[in-house]
């Protein structure tokens, strides 16, 4: 470990450029999710009031921030707690409050999901509050989140991932990065029958087609 890593005098904010990805003068241009072409809003309207054994909602245009740093560095872990009000979760854990969630990705990497319009403000606050050897990267444009809810979601996942999704080995609050069909996803269980998939932008269409195909034997309903 280098000296700069745990040296609280090392000023991270002075070494990075933090840029607003959606500056004020461009806010009137509506953002587009990677699933824009699927027009989930129209599908949701057409299926309004219906209930299915799998309900799909896209949590679109959220702010995704990747945090990298060492837990042994107090300037990093305390800075995150101070900025987000949440402590960094341990191995394979996810924590969340009203509108911020943190997912464990690897021993020195976390994914913070925040409301889209607050992503620049929170990114800036993190950059200013973190000390020592660490990194804050806004990856909002690179991924999107799908929420799956219903009694048959577990069966759908059993067809899609190579790990055990039974509540005994995949309890609420657990998050794993794994193979999903022929791509990969950060999968977390947020409720007894509720799951969230963080998927890559470039694979979102593939995942959308896969989910439709895979839930043909169940009843898939799109909600907003």
């Amino acid at each position, binding site marked *: 470990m280098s000296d700069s890593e745990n040296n609280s005098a090392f000023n991270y904010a002075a070494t990075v450029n933090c840029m607003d990805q959606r500056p004020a003068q461009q806010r009137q241009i509506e953002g587009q999710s990677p699933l824009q072409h699927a027009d989930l809003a129209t599908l949701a309207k057409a299926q309004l009031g219906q209930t299915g054994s799998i309900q799909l909602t896209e949590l679109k245009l959220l702010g995704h921030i990747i945090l990298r740093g060492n837990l042994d560095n107090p300037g990093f872990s305390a800075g995150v707690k101070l900025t987000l009000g949440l402590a960094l979760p341990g*191995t*394979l854990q996810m924590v969340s409050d009203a509108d911020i969630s943190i997912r464990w990705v*690897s021993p020195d990497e976390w994914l913070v999901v925040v409301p889209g319009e607050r992503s620049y403000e929170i990114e800036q606050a993190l950059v200013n509050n973190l000390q020592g050897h660490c990194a804050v990267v806004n990856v909002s444009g690179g991924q999107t989140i799908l929420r799956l809810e219903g009694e048959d979601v577990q069966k759908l996942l059993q067809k899609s991932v*190579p790990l055990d999704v039974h509540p005994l080995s995949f309890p609420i609050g657990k998050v*794993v990065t*794994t*193979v999903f069909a022929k791509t990969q996803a950060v999968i977390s269980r947020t409720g007894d029958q509720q799951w969230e998939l963080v998927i890559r932008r470039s694979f979102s269409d593939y995942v959308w087609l896969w989910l439709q195909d895979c839930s043909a034997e169940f009843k898939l309903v799109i909600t907003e």
Partner: protein
Amino acid sequence: MFYIYCPHCEEHREEEEFHAAGEAHIPRPLDPESCSDKEWGEYMFFRTNPRGIHHELWVHAVGCRKFFNMTRNTQSYEILEVYKIGEKPSITSAAAKLQAQSKVQEGV
């Protein structure tokens, strides 16, 4: 299929999530400029390829994306242990030989 324990995720996962990255414990020469062609060639291209206990480097490519080491028996495909980068293996072919010898002496 292997069912591999990732020392960083602290649980077993399917082989599908991993990639083998060759033999472990191959140090890069400290001063490559002063290496002979033979020494450099051996560092770059020549591997031990043993029959029996072998130390390998693996990466949890689709999971935490961290590298770790694995001791595996290339005959039986049995995974004997996994350990993090920087740690020493507790099971080696030399240790296994010693154990076998002592068993013979004890008449087991």
